[in-house]
């Protein structure tokens, strides 16, 4: 008998990392907005993500709907547990989403306001997502398949730190994206910024690595008892960090972004391996959280055909907008 739950775990895990990588760089561009050299650079930065951000964010909606379809318990425990955090996330996404259209339509006096909305919205959304990661590591208080904890259980020093970590991480994705997609002053600026962001990411990464086994016994046992191969994942992440640094020094254009994606993927796999098979820690595994077999199968039939098509035309749109974005050159 085919294990649909396992297949779905892989699909959802794939959807989440797709979201993190893709919306990560365009949120990152927003996070870096206040530090940009000038307004013209901000125009270039926004134009570099304008044609694709909407598609990137769709992976988040897929994450929401896919969880409801395949692992409803995750959806119906995490969202109530993170209630106010989810509101902040959505408010952030709303402001930065409309800023794409409004900023270019605003009068010069109001333009700064929408730049701020883009930056603030992106940062708040990234922070909220990072806090979700921290809250997930901490676990959720449940009874009888429902959340029974308080309104602010998700907000702890630990989760705020993971939030800051993700803000820095997305900013790193954003700066390496800009290295790849721009040239001249914007690119120079991004080259200078990248090592500093990388330093910040590694610093937070280190603190979290020491802190996590302290907040979570399960992770401690997993890391220090039987599973030695799990240590290959942080090793891979460090190798990627080294590659970013080296490729920035040699002023490579595409490699820093690719290596940053690698850094994210290794860290993400490390997180998954640490908590496996718990999707609503500390009580429920993915099998407890799964939807009915016939529902998983019905959705799988379509998704197996449709997702490759989605990936194909998404890749095509990236290809259409390939190459450098130049100052003063719009897409229109």
């Amino acid at each position: 008998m085919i294990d649909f739950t396992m297949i779905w775990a892989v699909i959802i895990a794939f959807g989440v990392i797709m979201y993190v990588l893709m919306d990560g760089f365009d949120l990152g561009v927003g996070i870096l907005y206040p530090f940009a050299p000038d307004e013209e650079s901000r125009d270039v930065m926004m134009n570099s993500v304008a044609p694709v951000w909407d598609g990137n964010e769709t992976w988040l909606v897929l994450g929401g709907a896919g969880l409801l379809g395949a692992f409803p318990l995750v959806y119906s425990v995490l969202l109530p547990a993170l209630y106010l955090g989810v509101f902040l996330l959505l408010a952030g996404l709303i402001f930065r989403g409309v800023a794409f259209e409004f900023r270019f339509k605003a009068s010069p006096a109001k333009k700064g306001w929408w730049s701020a909305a883009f930056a603030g919205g992106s940062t708040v959304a990234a922070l909220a997502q990072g806090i979700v990661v921290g809250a997930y590591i901490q676990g959720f208080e449940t009874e009888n398949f429902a959340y029974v904890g308080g309104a602010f259980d998700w907000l702890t020093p630990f989760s705020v730190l993971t939030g800051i970590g993700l803000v820095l991480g997305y900013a790193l994705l954003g700066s390496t994206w800009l290295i790849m997609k721009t040239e001249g002053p914007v690119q120079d600026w991004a080259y200078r910024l990248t090592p500093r962001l990388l330093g910040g990411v590694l610093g937070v990464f280190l603190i979290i690595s020491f802190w996590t086994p302290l907040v979570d016994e399960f992770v401690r046992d997993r890391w220090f008892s039987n599973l030695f191969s799990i240590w290959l994942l942080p090793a891979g992440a460090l190798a990627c960090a080294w590659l970013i640094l080296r490729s920035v020094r040699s002023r490579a254009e595409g490699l820093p972004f690719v290596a940053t994606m690698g850094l994210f993927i290794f860290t993400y796999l490390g997180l998954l391996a640490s908590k496996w098979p718990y999707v609503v820690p500390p009580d429920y595994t993915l099998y407890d959280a799964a939807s009915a077999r016939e529902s998983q199968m019905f959705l799988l039939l379509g998704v197996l055909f449709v997702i490759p098509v989605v990936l194909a035309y998404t890749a095509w749109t990236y290809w259409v907008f390939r190459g450098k974005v130049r100052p003063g050159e719009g897409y229109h």
Partner: protein
Amino acid sequence: MEFDPLLISRIQFAFVVSFHAIFPVFTIGLASYIALLEGLHFKTGNPAWAQLSRFWTKVFAVAFGMGVVSGIVMSFQFGTNWSNFAQMSANFLGPILSYEVVTAFFLEAAFLGVLLFGRDKVPRGTHLFAAIMVALGTFISSFWILVANSWMHTPAGVEFQDGMLHVRSWAEAIFNPSFPYRFTHMAVASFLTGSFVVAGVSAWYLLKGHKVEANRKALSMCLWMILFLAPAQAVIGDFHGLNTLEYQPTKVAAMEGNWETQAGAPLLLFALPDKAAQENRFEFGIPKLASIILTHEADGVVPGLTEVAPEDQPPVSIVFWSFRIMVGIGFLMIAFGIWGLVLRLRGRLYEPGRFHRLLPLMIAAPFIAVLAGWFTTESGRAPWLVYGMINFSEGVTPSLTGWMAIVSLIGYMSVYAVVYASGGYYLWRLVKGGMADVEPGSTESGAHPKRPLSAGGPIGDTAPAAPIKGEWT
């Protein structure tokens, strides 16, 4: 002060979904219109089509952006405020909403990028293809979301097992009894909305003498649409009502303000339903007409609200009045369609007059009608989330407290106030700025290619050919 999380959650859902709904209902119609304009330009090379297409694409970009961000909110509302409902109905709604994402949202998002920003980057045929894919995406999206919504009204193909609904027949659940009516009703509403917006703006431009050739074409097209679709919508709505009578008789009773089951029920034109007293405090109607409409017999029996206990009745006044607003606007739309035809037959369709001054005001009409229609059908389902299966109090998030709900409600209201006031303002400026020139025979943008442009381009910066009423700001 104690707040009831259930009530606040209902208000919050009504609030966010109402704001969200006005954008898709407009963009579904407009996407098809843009695809049509792109197609006409591709085929004929007439720059008037390009001019229209380009202008409406800018409007589309703003409206679609607002629809997308408010839509993301929707996809999380089920979990944050209605987690028990989400859990219980996940086996059906989860796959349906996921199908919407993978078959529609990605399609819209990816090809929208090409439609808005790719005009100079892809061949013309490909650009047209992108416009068609965006339009197709909006339809596929409305298909799935109306499957989900219709199923909540007329659930089929499922049964309870261990506290969760399990799907026994996907075909019965997807093509549930009210789906064909609701889908058709909504699709036609989208086309009517798009038609009234385009017609209103075109009429206003004609009054100003702005881009006359293009706007005459647009006005004429839209008025043909309105002439046929507005009456068709009334017929579809009637069939939808008959379907509701069969599956949700209490809702129809509320729509008619009919408390006691009776033969030869009157059609009430005005009434003040009083739920506490279980009767209308004042009513005025046409004898027997409700029976004739609903049963096609003068003495047909119309079910009354008192067939169910007061706590199982919907909020009667809301359903009663929002239904009347929707129908009233529907007739107004039919009247405008006929008025347009009369002017056309007299050869005065393009002569600025009262009709052209009133049409811009009618832009608001379809939006109000759509919201009123949604209030009718959604409030009419109360107290059920899934009709006859899951009610509000079973569905609400158990850990949600009153103050949390009130914080998020005020939060969403504040965010939406800023975002939608700004969006409305930028749309208004976009319209006021007028249509940009397109050189005859050019395939590409008349806009300044040397400037950083968003999809829409800076308003008032694209050198309006005919200044409209002077100032922009």
